[in-house]
């Protein structure tokens, strides 16, 4: 089925209510401000990046660690590894709890890859964030609350898709990450030329998804 949502699987969710300061420091948290950690692994790295950002909008949590694993979830180091480990840090366990609730809600209902060829041979992540939380806002260098198109696809499909997206609407590239990445996808973050232009981000993401579907159907 074309463009079917591929709902990400949360492989493990655990909390550390009062983590050791050395561990906090090693994972990028600040022992002076953070005590509790929430850890999540998932089989879709980009969906989890978006979900971690969603968590920062719902609870007083910081995303201190989020890294994709090499070669993706098809080549994971264990059954629970997936292709990403994300770590939330907060001053107290309840904030972690609230953040994880928002994160899992986002993964179950919102952020996901889509099947671009009907056989799950090519997948695409044409996600539009209506309002950035402080995690991705910091990563992208945009103000909190701005809309952003978060576009991911395999190398060649993505390259054509980025071109189509940038030409389809009044958007600018915030950051383009060409392949190879850890998971060997390519990624681009776009935002409107005008601040707050959500419609432009949506038009760009639609054009990106259409271009990837087109390449999947006609690779030559």
């Amino acid at each position, binding site marked *: *089925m074309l463009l079917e949502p591929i709902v990400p699987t949360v492989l493990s969710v655990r909390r550390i209510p009062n983590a050791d300061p050395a561990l906090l420091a090693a994972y990028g948290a600040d022992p002076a401000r953070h005590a509790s950690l929430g850890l999540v692994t998932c089989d879709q790295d980009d969906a989890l990046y978006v979900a971690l950002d969603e968590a920062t909008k719902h609870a007083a949590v910081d995303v201190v660690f989020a890294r994709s694993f090499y070669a993706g979830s098809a080549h994971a180091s264990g059954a629970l590894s997936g292709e990403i480990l994300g770590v939330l840090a907060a001053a107290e366990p309840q904030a972690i709890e609230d953040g994880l609730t928002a994160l899992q809600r986002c993964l179950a*209902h919102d952020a996901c890859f889509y099947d671009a060829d009907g056989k799950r041979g090519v997948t695409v992540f044409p996600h539009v964030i209506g309002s950035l939380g402080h995690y991705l806002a910091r990563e992208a260098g945009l103000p909190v609350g701005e809309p952003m198109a978060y576009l991911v696809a395999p190398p060649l499909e993505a390259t054509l898709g980025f071109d189509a997206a940038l030409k389809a609407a009044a958007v600018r590239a915030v950051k383009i990450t060409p392949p190879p990445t850890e998971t060997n996808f390519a990624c681009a973050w776009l935002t409107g030329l005008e601040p707050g232009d959500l419609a432009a981000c949506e038009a760009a993401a639609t054009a990106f998804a259409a271009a990837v579907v087109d390449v999947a159907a006609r690779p030559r």
Partner: protein
Amino acid sequence: MSTTRAMIAALRDRLGAGDPMPPREPLPPVPAPPARVYAPRREQSRFAREAARHTTALVGIGHVGTRYATDVVLQFQAELAVAHHAVAAELPDDWAAAHGFVPLRSRVSTHREFLLRPDLGRRLDGPSLERLRAEADRGVDVQIIVADGLSAVACQQSGPALYATLRVACERRGLRVGTAVCAKFARVWLEDEIGQEVGAKVAVILLGERPGLGTGDGLSAYLVHGPRVGKTDGDRNMMSNIHARGTPPEQAAERLAALAAAMIEQGTSGVGLDLARVPGGDAGRGYRAPQVRQRLVEKGDR
């Protein structure tokens, strides 16, 4: 939730996909927050209920749980805002002349200084003193002074009306009334200096009173016999709450004129004045119909 799913569904339609998108998993229900709902409770005490009929004070207002009812809180905030507005208001410089008063000014230079330095508000500044000496009638029986006091709003609203009725009431008693003056940034004791300068037997200052809840428009009147700098509050008689919902200006003017006449007759004022010998002296001291609270916030059905 982002708009991405709807966006992709529209793209599928455009690409001609025959089958519909799989439905999104339903969102889990949001549990209601733990809360107790309190019904408003009317005041149970008969005493408080009866008392509330006779005052504009906030008594017998009931409660909702441990709080006040919302309409009571809104009413309180609205009335407090009226009071704040009255204190913050400033008498325009050209107001006195426009209403036929000789404009005077105390030694205060700014409104903030007026609030912080009562002592400066009790003395005239140099130019005002010269103007008073040059223009005011001397040796009069009653010198009436209109002033802003702590509520320029009240002074502007009912100052001229009270002045006019009081002047008529005094003249009807055969008293000679002095030149109409209006003082800006004035405190009560400013009447001592003005009365002393014009050599009046009695000085009356009509000024905006310190606003209370819902009464930003109240005037007070202070009378002193033989005004001179250094008189104390023990030498004064006063009348407060002169506004439409308290003592109306017409009624107040009669009583003030009677007091002024009695002061001249008895040759004293304040604690020395025998109020029993004031003709019509019980005016405003006997039974008065209860004041009705003016509702600034309309209450809906509860």
